[in-house]
């Protein structure tokens, strides 16, 4: 196999809301991570207080649309982790 360039990193803006924001102690940060990172694989890097797996009740939005946690992120994406919704 030929040598290749190291995979380029990507920078994403990560946002937290409501109870999740308060549990984690921050609302927003810019993070640089490896290409191929998904919301689910990024989650443990955020040092969540309740273990490494993204809780089933937490939903993910990429660029302000609901997305599958297994979606590969793109450079510049806005990624949000959303605790259970209680609107209306």
């Amino acid at each position, binding site marked *: 196999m030929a040598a290749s360039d190291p995979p380029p990193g990507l920078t994403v803006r990560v*946002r937290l*809301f*409501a*109870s*999740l924001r*308060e*549990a*984690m102690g921050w609302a927003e940060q810019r993070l640089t991570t490896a290409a191929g990172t998904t919301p689910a694989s990024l989650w443990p890097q955020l040092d*969540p*207080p*309740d273990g490494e797996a993204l*809780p089933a*009740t*937490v939903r993910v*939005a990429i660029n*302000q*649309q*609901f997305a599958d946690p297994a979606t590969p992120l793109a450079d510049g994406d806005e990624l*949000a982790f*959303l*605790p*259970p*919704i*209680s*609107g*209306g």
Partner: protein
Amino acid sequence: MSVSVSLHPDPFGPFLQVEQWQQQLGGDPAAATSLFIGRVRGTASDGQPLDALELEHYPGMTEAQLQRLATASARRHGVAAVMVRHRVGLVLSGDAIVVVAVLADRRGPAQRCCHELLEALKHDAPFWKREWSSGVGTWVEGNTPLTAG
């Protein structure tokens, strides 16, 4: 088909909102209007008197998601027009927190669209409620491990 959604940091009169919206739509009044108004209760989930409800949202996504949900529901039921008004921020007991209004030519589609859209926005629009009671704030439906910490 017309869809109008907006978020309101300040109290609004539900009927005034609907009347102004209908006037802006112009044209003949629809044969069927289905309307739902949700107000903040006087008591918190635990039965204690509620001082206020705090409504957090995701600026940008919440508006876009309301628009998507309302448009999808309006298309699905073939109605003429849909309006959603939703409070954000601190909402006092008795205040209207959400208004959904649907205009259609028939009562069935108007009622079904109104009902469905209300359910959709309760589950798929990014809002988070925190009940304030005796100076303590508690997230509603915050039954995930993370919120217990």
